[in-house]
């Protein structure tokens, strides 16, 4: 009995002694940590996904306080987290548009021809080692779901043999871009509908023989684009998203339907008559001459001609044009 008592009391006393010593030391050697670090750490999602480029949420919060990272440094948290952090840092949230990952390939089972059957490990990286995968196009999505497995946020699904990314679920962590052996995933602004969904750098003839929707590098989109947003890089059309107004002229022109965008969803300019003063600025700015009207008279939009680029709405001094 006394053995147990001795053990408990002696160890307890030692614990108490060392504990109080440490308590004293912690007061004596207290280091002032910036309270904002703690607060930002609280506000961050705590997933430690590394999407921000720092080892974890703790690293990012330190960097934000040190001024090395922007308040919107966390791609996962979204606007809410950014707002909270900005408040802690005493700034107003400057929120840029989110950039999301997108699969730049439309080579579904129907569109892209298979060149062989693959019976290996169900992983794109393994399949890519076997003479570049089973698809006849060596640039396309293999659709075995390596990106699906690496996505922590459940944003990727495999449909019709290619990967699809749900842009609402995508948090821009970039893990799928890293893991894709074909580098067929790219960054695209969230609202961007018009995207060249092809990654093939082969000659048009070869592309055509392998995939029904590949970019054959004909350059028709580049010529058709009223805003000069499309350039031909090698044998592939490239859209400059900062210049693109999503007018979908290229989508309509593309002979192989390699550029995405739904024409039916395209917006139209609508002039609010009570605000229009008839200055004709919009008519001058319209790249397709879809606005008619005399000086000092109410203008109107010719619906069939309007491509919904929004240039007129941007330039109207009276805010009389709405995109609907």
């Amino acid at each position, binding site marked *: 009995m006394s053995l147990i008592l001795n*053990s408990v009391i*002696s160890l307890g006393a030692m614990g108490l002694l060392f504990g109080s010593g440490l308590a004293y*030391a912690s007061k004596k050697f207290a280091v002032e940590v910036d309270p904002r670090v703690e607060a930002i750490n609280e506000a961050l999602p705590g997933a430690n996904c590394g999407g921000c480029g720092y080892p974890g949420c703790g690293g990012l919060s330190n960097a934000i306080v040190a001024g090395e990272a922007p308040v919107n440094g966390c791609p996962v948290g979204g606007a809410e987290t950014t707002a909270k952090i900005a408040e802690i840092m005493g700034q107003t949230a400057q929120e840029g548009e989110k950039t999301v990952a997108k699969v730049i390939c439309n080579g579904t089972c129907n569109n892209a021809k298979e060149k062989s059957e693959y019976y290996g490990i169900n992983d794109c990286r393994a399949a890519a080692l076997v003479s570049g995968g089973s698809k006849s196009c060596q640039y396309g999505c293999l659709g075995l779901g390596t990106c699906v497995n690496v996505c922590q946020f459940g944003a990727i699904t495999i449909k019709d043999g290619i990967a699809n990314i749900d842009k609402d679920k995508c948090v821009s962590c970039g893990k799928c871009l890293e893991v894709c052996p074909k580098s067929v995933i790219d960054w695209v602004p969230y609202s961007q509908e018009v995207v060249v969904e092809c990654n093939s750098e082969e000659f048009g003839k070869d592309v055509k023989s392998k995939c029904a929707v590949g970019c054959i590098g004909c350059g028709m989109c580049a010529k058709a684009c009223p805003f000069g947003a499309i350039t031909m890089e090698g044998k592939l059309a490239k859209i400059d998203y900062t210049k693109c107004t999503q007018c979908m002229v290229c989508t309509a022109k593309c002979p192989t339907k390699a550029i995405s965008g739904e024409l039916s969803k395209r917006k139209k300019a609508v002039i609010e008559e009570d605000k229009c003063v008839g200055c004709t600025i919009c008519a001058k700015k319209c790249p397709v001459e879809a606005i008619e009207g005399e000086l000092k008279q109410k203008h109107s939009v010719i619906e069939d001609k309007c491509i919904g680029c929004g240039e007129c709405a941007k330039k109207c001094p009276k805010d009389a044009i709405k995109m609907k």
Partner: protein
Amino acid sequence: MEIFLILVSSILVNNFVLSRFLGICPFLGVSKKVETAVGMGMAVTFVMTLASMITYFVQYYVLEPLGIQFLQTIAFILVIASLVQFVEMVIQKMSPTLYQALGVFLPLITTNCAVLGVAIINIDSNYNLIQTIVNGMGAAIGFTLAIVLFAGIRERLELADVPESFKGFPIALITASLMAIAFLGFTGLV
């Protein structure tokens, strides 16, 4: 004379890292830069010397009079853990850069077998207080010597043309084993 022999023995002959293979974790983890290796060595030296002393008192003035020697391990861990906490606070206050560089390895001294090892070896060898402190300090100096030498070699290894598959830890482990063989040469010195 005997004290000198204990010191030489614990630093060179029975080097904790290279002969007894204790404390390998910080030895491999914090040996990328000489600077942090020195810092780690200092921290371990402080903890080891003090732990040797305090565990001596705990053993002979608490555990043995009460006849509860079986609690040796747990009591010693209590001492070491408290000391490590203390060291952590001091380093955070004195040198935040070193604190950053040591990272997770600082709290890991708590579970460092080398510290517990030296405390138990002291008791097993029936050392008196002076011998205990000398042995503890010697072991810590031996650890520091090994880790600093190793860090120096690894800094050079960074620049060496190491085959791809040996880069990083493989070559570090091979280096460590070669160092251990070199230290084997001290056998029989004491």
